[in-house]
């Protein structure tokens, strides 16, 4: 069975720059972007035949720092419970890569980066990117690392979208895929929540048409967007369990200060988010999610036979990415005779569950990956 779990210890972010003029990356919109820097981290060792690489894709507010600790940091990476020695993505066996998406603000090229043509931040003039563009940039990094075929691509939420996009774009380079709490396309409800978040940012006078980099960023708007986001990541039941109607001071104060614990929590989440995230990145990344539509032929063309194996995971109380969207993925895969396993994990955490239901995810992913690596060792294409 599984070995003792332990931490990766201190890890470092690396950087890869490509798409220098005149070979800029041509985006889905037709616009060009370059040079592009990707921040990324790797954990574990790439084996001799480079067959043990797993690509981890982060969600909306995530970054390249998926596991381990940065020097002098008290908090580990965002999926530390899942990545490390003896964990679901066992770094004793697998080589893990996680990169910050383009459009992001955590080391990869995004709207807060300096536009080499103007020597000023791109701001709102950053080209509108798609999930496809994010994956295309990651593919350049994959090539740079000299890996032909990934053992697995995985991620939750927007990370799951990239996972699906990876298979859509490069099915022959992805041996297996684990999309978690995600969808082949954003529904009108999902677009609506994103749009409210964007409007909160753009309605903040501090946004200044996206040109705020010589001032403070639109903190109120970004914090509000994040607060809305956090409501959608929880469930009615998880909020009841976490906060109920508890008051911070024990009694009504008859003011508009945050009295209920849930108010305090949302404000805290909003305020801490603006310390680490760029408002324009929020606009560009949510837009990229809204554009995603891999329904039908766009996911797998009619005449294409793919040999990628899937483990699709959803959570019962997730109303932002409801399980029917995962079942749609599975139904489509089965209609195309693609190997798939699906589990709807019982959870009360809502969409956040993919970061919290660790035992269930670990069990399923550990055994799924064991099967996939075994079939690679046996030289079985399927």
């Amino acid at each position, binding site marked *: 069975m599984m070995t003792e779990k332990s931490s990766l210890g201190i890890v470092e972010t690396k950087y890869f720059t490509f798409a220098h003029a005149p070979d800029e990356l041509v985006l889905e919109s037709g616009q060009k972007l370059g040079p592009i820097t990707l921040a990324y981290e790797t954990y574990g060792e790439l084996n001799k035949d480079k067959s043990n690489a797993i690509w981890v894709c982060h969600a909306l507010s995530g970054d390249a720092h998926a596991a381990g600790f940065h020097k002098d940091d008290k908090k580990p990476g965002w999926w530390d419970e899942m990545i490390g020695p003896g964990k679901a993505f066992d770094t004793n066996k697998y080589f893990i890569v996680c990169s910050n998406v383009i459009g992001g603000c955590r080391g990869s090229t995004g709207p807060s980066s300096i536009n080499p043509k103007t020597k000023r931040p791109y701001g709102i003039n950053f080209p509108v990117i798609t999930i496809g563009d994010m994956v295309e940039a990651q593919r350049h990094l994959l090539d740079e690392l000299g890996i032909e075929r990934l053992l697995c691509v995985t991620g939750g939420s927007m990370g799951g979208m990239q996972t699906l996009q990876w298979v859509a774009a490069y099915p022959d380079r992805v041996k297996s895929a684990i999309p978690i709490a995600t969808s082949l396309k954003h529904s009108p409800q999902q677009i609506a929540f994103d749009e409210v978040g964007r409007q909160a940012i753009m309605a903040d006078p501090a946004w200044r048409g996206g040109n705020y980099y010589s001032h403070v960023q639109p903190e109120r708007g970004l914090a509000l967007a994040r607060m809305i986001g956090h409501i959608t990541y929880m469930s009615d039941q998880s909020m009841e369990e976490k906060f109920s109607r508890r008051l911070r001071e024990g009694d009504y104060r008859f003011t508009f200060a945050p009295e209920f614990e849930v108010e305090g929590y949302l404000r805290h989440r909003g305020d801490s988010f603006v310390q680490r995230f760029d408002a324009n990145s929020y606009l560009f990344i949510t837009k990229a999610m809204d554009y995603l539509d891999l329904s039908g032929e766009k996911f797998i063309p009619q005449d294409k036979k793919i040999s990628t*194996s899937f*483990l699709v995971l959803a959570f019962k109380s997730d109303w932002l990415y409801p399980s029917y969207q995962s079942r749609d993925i*599975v139904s489509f895969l089965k209609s195309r005779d693609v190997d798939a396993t699906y589990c709807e*994990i*019982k959870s009360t955490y809502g969409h956040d569950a993919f970061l919290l239901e660790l035992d269930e995810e670990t*069990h*399923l992913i550990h*055994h799924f990956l064991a099967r996939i690596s075994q079939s690679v060792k046996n030289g079985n294409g399927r």
Partner: protein
Amino acid sequence: MKLDHQIIFDIVKRGAKVMDLGCGDGELLSILVDKKQVEAQGIELKEEAIYKCVERGLSVLHGDIESGLGVYPNKSFDYVILNQSMQEVNNVDYIIGEALRVGKRAIVGFPNFAHITARCEIFFGGRTPVNDALPYRWFDTPNVHFLTIKDFREFCAEKNIQILKACFLGKKRLIRIFPNLFAQNAIFEITQSNGE
């Protein structure tokens, strides 16, 4: 190997493509994968059973079997197995129809309600029978249909379903005489008559 698994194992051809509807913890499917190199897919409603299946290295879909087959093209599988799960679904007619649409053949295993102990319990005891094949009491049973071997034969005749093989199981061995009286369980291999 359990007797019902042995019978199904003997029916399934090496390297076949198999769907197990209501595969439970995947015991039968993993035997078929290991020893007959079948390409296997299971569908199962219980979440705990899904974890077991994945542990065994099986591909399994979490969901109810009534909504699980719609997406598959005709004749996607060599065999669709419904072992001890048919009597638990509401719309048997639909499930058998779907099983025979997506599968070239179906293998159906169910408890025989006309077994002699069941007959005696109703006739003399005046109670709903509880025995090895029907282990549940009336209020906690997952079964929504109670059928006999004769019932199933008549169903097949009415639906133009051809019976390729019928095996009748006692507690430990096969039953060869008066199966509707002495068999606790039955396993039928069936196919749709027209077009085959």
